[in-house]
């Protein structure tokens, strides 16, 4: 287990370094520079040159790269060009909300997927199977922002059950702790539901296929011959076989959800990484763009690392004797 983990960590690190380099290259090679977007009109050529020097934009690329990496490693991500605050602060504030949103959405996504899959498998080939499958496919094919807007219109505007956006109410700081949590959850509900509803069907179809395969195995036949009920066969005997690979799939789903979160955060005004990076891109706020991209990469890598490690813990066969365990 340990040597495996060490190898895996090394790979992840390598990936991140590669990614940092690519981010740097892409951002710097794109046409235009921050001065074009931000202060452009109001600054004359000489001042512009001074600014360039201050930001280090006139150095050769290699030099900029080395400076950037070493500063990043020291925790100094530079100043946000737009907000004139340390990037670490801007991004740091956004990480929490994004994690909260993505993880909540993922839990919801899993619950929906498993319920839908079990329902489809239990009523295989019958009406409920087609109904659940069809509804899921419709949801899957809707664009995320549209689904978000519809939920917003229906539940926030028409019915008024949930707030229309933001992380918390304006007066949240004045509320007692319990009410503050409730307030947060109410704000969380719509964005998380948008993310989960738009994505659960992919997983559900996967789980359903795995369930069908497991239900065809001989151990199911043997358990059935011992009089075990169909419901128990499905939930207790077959479902673990379908859930196990999901742990690994989680490593793939996390990036998807993070990607989806960008749109949802913008629609619901959720102050997360996605919204921060969209704004930063609009303003060519390079330090922020690089930081958010890098942070997303770290999240994705960490997610898939956790997923792999989790799989090895969860499967008794891999845990004890599995291939690849040195």
């Amino acid at each position, binding site marked *: 287990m340990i040597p495996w983990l060490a190898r895996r960590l090394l790979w992840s690190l390598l990936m991140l370094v590669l990614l940092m380099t690519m981010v740097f290259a892409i951002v710097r090679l794109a046409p235009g520079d921050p001065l074009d977007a931000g202060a452009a009109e109001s600054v004359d050529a000489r001042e512009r040159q001074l600014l360039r020097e201050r930001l280090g934009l006139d150095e050769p690329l290699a030099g900029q790269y080395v400076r950037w990496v070493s500063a990043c490693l020291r925790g100094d991500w530079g100043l946000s060009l737009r907000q004139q605050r340390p990037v670490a602060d801007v991004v740091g504030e956004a990480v929490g909300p994004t994690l909260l949103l993505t993880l909540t959405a993922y839990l919801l996504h899993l619950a929906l997927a498993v319920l839908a899959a079990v329902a489809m498998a239990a009523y295989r080939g019958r009406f409920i199977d087609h109904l659940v499958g069809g509804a899921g496919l419709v949801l899957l094919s809707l664009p995320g922002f549209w689904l978000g807007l519809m939920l917003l219109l229906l539940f926030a505007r028409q019915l008024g059950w949930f707030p229309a956006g933001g992380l918390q109410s304006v007066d949240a700081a004045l509320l007692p702790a319990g009410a503050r949590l409730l307030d947060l959850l109410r704000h969380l509900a719509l964005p998380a539901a948008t993310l989960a509803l738009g994505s659960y069907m992919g997983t559900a179809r996967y789980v359903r296929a795995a369930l069908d395969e497991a239900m065809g*195995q*001989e*151990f*199911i*036949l*043997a*358990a*059935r*011959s*011992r*009089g*075990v*009920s*169909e419901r*128990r066969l499905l939930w*207790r*005997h077959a479902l*673990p*076989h379908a859930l*196990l690979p999901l742990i690994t799939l989680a490593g793939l789903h996390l990036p998807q959800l993070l990607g989806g979160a960008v749109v949802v955060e913008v629609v619901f005004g959720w102050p997360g990484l996605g919204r921060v990076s969209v704004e930063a891109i609009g303003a060519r706020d390079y330090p922020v763009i690089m930081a958010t991209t890098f942070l997303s990469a770290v999240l994705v890598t960490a997610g898939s690392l956790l997923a792999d490690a989790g799989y090895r813990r969860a*499967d*008794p*066969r891999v845990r*004890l*004797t599995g291939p690849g365990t040195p």
Partner: protein
Amino acid sequence: MNELLRLSGLTVGFAGAALPVLRGLDLELAEGEAVALVGASGSGKTLLARAALGLLPPEAWQQGQVNWRGVEARLAPGGWGALRGRGLTWLPQEPLSGLNPLLTVGAQVSEAARQHQGLGHQDALRFTVDLLAELQLPSPMELLYAWPHELSGGMRQRVLLAAALACGPELLIADEPTSNLDTTVQRDLLAVLDRARRARGMALLFITHDHDLVPLVADRCVEISDGRLVERVSGRHAHEGARAPHTVRGAAPRLVPGNAAPALSARALVVRHGAAESVPAVAGVDLDLWPGRSVGLVGESAAGKSSLARALAGHLRPSSGVVSVGCVAAGSDRGAAARAARRRVQMLFQDAGASLNPRQRVGDTLIEAAGAAHPGMVSRLLAEVGLDEALAMRHPHALSGGQRQRVALARCLATDPAVLIADEPTSALDGGTRARVLELLTRVMVTRGLAVLLVTHDLDTALSFCDELLVMHSGLIIERAPAASFALLRHPHSRRLLDCRPAALASTSGWRDAPAAPAPAGGRPFSGCPLAGACPLQNASCFKELPPLAELAPGRWLRCPPASELPPPQFIDTI
């Protein structure tokens, strides 16, 4: 006695198939009765079991009735599902796929106890422990939390038996439960099954392809053929005359010609599957194969037979030692001579179907193996293995099991080999087909002067086919003797293998009460005799050093000093 299960006019077939597999079959089973159902593979034995359980595969159709205690099963109160478990249940053939790999032993066995005995969680676990102990599983408490993959095949099969018994069934349908087990393990499983059945007064339908097992488990025997049942004589006597001892070899074993050179020889061969410190699968074997002679390599499944066979055939790289074919070292060299030498050693596998390319016609397979197409070569090869020329145009799936094995043999012969290594070539075949394939092998061996190594777990096959027997255990040759008679085998382990053969058990009255075999000491550091600790003849020196393979008499070698000193008759009744 009250009738329990009755199948009347049972017809089961598959959509699209021309003929149904079971054709109007009738079977009655009374309370507490043990019936053996014998049939060749593909005769529909398993289909019958699944029809009785109401668990036919979805693509099968069924006519006729299945009655349980006089009521048609599908109309019983609560339906068929309510009968399964308490009424009748099933013991599958394959112990690994029959157990859920993601549930612990305790979870799978106690589930049935909770459901059918109405026990609470704790009581069900206690019940499970007792049951596992009754079936002579070691340390049942720890076993509760063991995963199926941690157990040996024999233990898995007992766990499955425990799960079935936990339902408290009136009828157990055992579907070839021992066909993948070693004979020693098979004996123990049959013994616990028989004892558990008698203690509960449970009825048993024992499905098997092996006539020899019938007297061990059943009072009555029915045979399935052509989709119908043929009643046989009472099980306990069915054995006599059913299997005439018959030697494929013909006369006495062929002797090693005085002046010839061996076709293949191995010296100090060691094979490891893991790291350099791991316990070797083959732990230093010397062996010679002579032209026109066959050597039988027998032993249990973990003895290292297959590893040895693969190393000899060049499919596995030995960790140390040499294999030479006709005086060319073939094992480790890469040169053209070594490659040519390896080509002269061909291997015939148990599963001929899997070793043939499914998309290639038989004729093309043979031409590819020969490396060049000579006119008439394909038909000559097919004729040599007793197949019609017309089969050259067929694909493997259009052949029967016996035909496939013959094609696989023809493919080996296409390279004009000097040595043929056959790894359990007949164990997937039924009695008659098996004998014919062995006869063919003998004929080919004699006419071509082939040196043959037959790897098998079936001592009877080895005795009837081979000139010499090698017995393996823990990667070592423990005994070597002419295959003239089993009486020549003396090693305690060889005797145990002999005594556990179903045919031998049938004539031993107290076989059920003999103690279960002690678990073999696995993975311990290799010093001393591998059997020390589980051997009736052991003495102090057995634990200290590995006894040498010593020559007792010309052609008879034994790796057991205590056994060499005793006269043979004394071993007849030891385990």
